[in-house]
C-alpha cells in the first residue's frame, strides 16, 4: 500500500504527495504515476509536473471534479508498478579542467580530497534524473556522494555559462543556459541540455554517467556538436532495476 496525500494547489491543480524528502523509491512512484496519467489522456487532466516526491496534476474543473480526479488517481496508485519502467542511459562528456571548474579545488579542500579524487568520485556513479524544473531542460541528477555535498557560495556569481556542471546539495546539475548562480561549479559539458526546437535532452527517470574529457576534447566536441557532426544519443534503452 503506497502512502500518499492529495493537497490542493488552487482550484485547477492538485499535488499528489508521496513523502517529504528526496528518495529514489518515492521518485520512482511519482514517475510511474506520471507515466500512467500521461499515456491515458484522461478527460479533464491537462498537464502533469513530476518533481522529487510529488506529482502536480493540472485539471479542468469543468470536465472533472477534484473528488473524481482524486478517485481516478487513487485507482492508479493501487495498481502502481515501479519495477519495470524502461529508462534511457546517457553518457555525457564533462570537462573537469580547472579552467571550467572554478570551485573544484574548494570542493576538494572541504572534502579533504585531491581534485583528482573529487573527479573520480563525482564521475564514478550512475545518476538518476529525479525531475526537470526551474529552467527549461534543467535536470536534477542524484545523488552526489555525501562528501561532495557543499554549501552554496557566499556571494552568487552574476553569470555562469551554459553547460556549467554544478553541485546543489545532493543534486548534480548541468545548467541549460547562462544564468546567475550561487552553486559550486566543478566542470562543464559541451552538450546542450536545451534546444529551442527540440526541447529538453533529458527526461525524468533517465540515467546519466559523466564521462570526464580533457579541455582539448571539450573544445573539439563543442565545435562538432555546434556543426551538427556529433549527436549525443542515449547509450542503452534498458529496464530499470528496482533499487
Amino acid at each position, binding site marked *: 500500500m503506497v502512502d500518499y496525500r492529495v*493537497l*490542493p*494547489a*488552487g*482550484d*485547477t*491543480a492538485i*499535488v499528489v*504527495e508521496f513523502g*517529504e*524528502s*528526496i528518495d529514489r523509491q518515492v521518485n520512482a512512484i511519482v514517475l510511474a504515476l*506520471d507515466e500512467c496519467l500521461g499515456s491515458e489522456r484522461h478527460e479533464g487532466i*491537462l*498537464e*502533469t*509536473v*513530476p*518533481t*522529487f*516526491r*510529488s506529482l*502536480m496534476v*493540472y485539471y479542468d*474543473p*469543468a470536465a472533472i*471534479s*477534484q473528488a473524481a480526479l482524486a478517485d481516478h488517481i487513487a485507482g492508479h496508485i493501487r495498481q502502481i508498478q515501479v519495477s519495470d519502467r524502461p529508462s534511457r542511459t546517457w553518457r555525457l562528456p564533462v570537462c573537469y579542467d580547472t579552467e571550467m571548474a572554478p570551485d573544484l579545488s574548494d570542493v576538494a579542500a572541504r572534502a579533504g580530497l585531491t581534485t583528482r579524487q573529487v573527479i573520480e568520485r563525482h564521475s564514478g556513479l550512475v545518476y538518476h534524473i529525479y*525531475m*526537470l*524544473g*526551474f*529552467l*527549461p*531542460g*534543467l535536470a*536534477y541528477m542524484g545523488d552526489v556522494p555525501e562528501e561532495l555535498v557543499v554549501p552554496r557560495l557566499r556571494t552568487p556569481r552574476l553569470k555562469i555559462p551554459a553547460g556549467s556542471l554544478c553541485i546543489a546539495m545532493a543534486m548534480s546539475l548541468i545548467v*541549460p*543556459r547562462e544564468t546567475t548562480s550561487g552553486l559550486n561549479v566543478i566542470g562543464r559539458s559541451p552538450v546542450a541540455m*536545451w534546444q*529551442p526546437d527540440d*526541447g*529538453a535532452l533529458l527526461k*525524468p527517470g533517465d540515467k546519466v554517467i559523466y564521462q570526464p574529457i580533457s579541455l582539448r576534447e571539450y573544445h573539439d566536441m563543442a565545435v562538432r556538436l555546434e556543426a551538427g557532426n556529433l549527436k549525443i544519443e542515449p547509450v542503452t534503452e534498458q529496464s530499470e532495476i528496482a533499487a
Partner: protein
Amino acid sequence: MTAFLKILRPGLMTSVQDLGRSGYQSLGIGSSGALDPVALRAANLLVGNNPGEGALEVLYLGPAIEIEAQSVRLSFVGARTTIEILPNIEAKIGSCIEGQRSVLVKRGEIVKIRSIVGGASLYVGIEGGLNIDPAFGSVSTNIRAATGGWRARALMEGDQLPLRRPQALDRGECRLDGITFFPSARIRVIPGPQLHYFEEAEIAWFFDSEFTVGTSDRVGMRLRGQRPLQHAKGFDIASDAIAPGSIQVPGDGQPIVLMADRHTTGGYPKIATVISADLPALGRLCIGSKIRFESVTVAQAHALRREMLSFLEDLPKYIVPISRLSAPFAPRLFDYNLISGVVDARTGLANPEE
C-alpha cells in the same frame, strides 16, 4: 509592401503575450501569458480577433510605436491611460484618446501610450495579429526561459514587429461599455498546499493582515506585511511544482505571489494559492497596492470560476460601436461609466471600495 509596428520607445516592460502555453511545465517551461487575460481577450475582441490572439502587454509605462503599414487597427484595454496619436515623427502635438476602445492608425503615424494609472497592465490588440511563429504552442514571451514572443525578450527600441495584415479592414471602431479593469483589494485563495509548514495562529494572522505590493514583475509579486510570517518547521522543502498564483513564503517571511513567468518548481513552502477566477485581478495590482487574502473552499472557487468563464463568454456583449458623430465624446462618456461603477459585480472584477 512592408507591414510593421516599429518600436520607437519600448516603455518599461512591453512584451508579446497571449493566453499562455500549456503542457511543457514538466520540461521546465512555465505557462507565461497575459497577467490580465480578461483585458487581453477584450483587446482582441475590439479589433475582431480571436480572444486568445497575441497582443502587446504594457506594464506601468507605455511604448511609442510608429506605424509602418498602410493602416492598422489597434485597441487599448486595461488600466487607464491616455493615448496620443501624432501625424508623423516630427509632430509635437497630436490628438488624444482614452483607452478601452479601438482606433485606426495609418502609415507614419505615431502612437504614444503614456503612463498607465489605476492598474499595472494594459493590452494593445492588433487587428489580424502579429506575424510571429508560436514557440511550444504560444507566442507568449517567457524571458527567463528564453522562449516565445518577439526574440524571447521584452521589446526594445528599433524592433520592427511584422503584422499579418498589411491594411486594416474597412469597418467602424468599437469601445467597451460596462467593464472596468480595476485591481481588486481582496484576493481569494485556497489555503495550501504547504499549510502544514505554518502554525494555526500564523495562518489566521495571514488572513487577518493587510499586505502591500512591493517589487513586482511578471515572475513574482513581493508582499510586505506588518511583520514577517513565521515558519513552523523551516522554510526548505524538497522542490515541488508551482501553480500560478502560489504564495510562497521564503526564509525572510515576506510572501511572494508567483505570477505568469514563475519558475516551474521551487523549494519554499506555499501557504496559499490564488483562485483562478482572481488571477486577472491579481495581474492588475501595482506596486504600493494594499491587499487582503480571503480563504475560500475548492467548491466555492469552482463556482467563481464558472461565473468567470460565463463572463468571458459574454465579453462580446460589452462591445459597442463608436458612432462617427459621437466619436470625439465617447471616451469622455466612457470615463463617466468608470466613475459610476457600471461593472459586472458577479466576477469581482470591480474595485470593492467603489
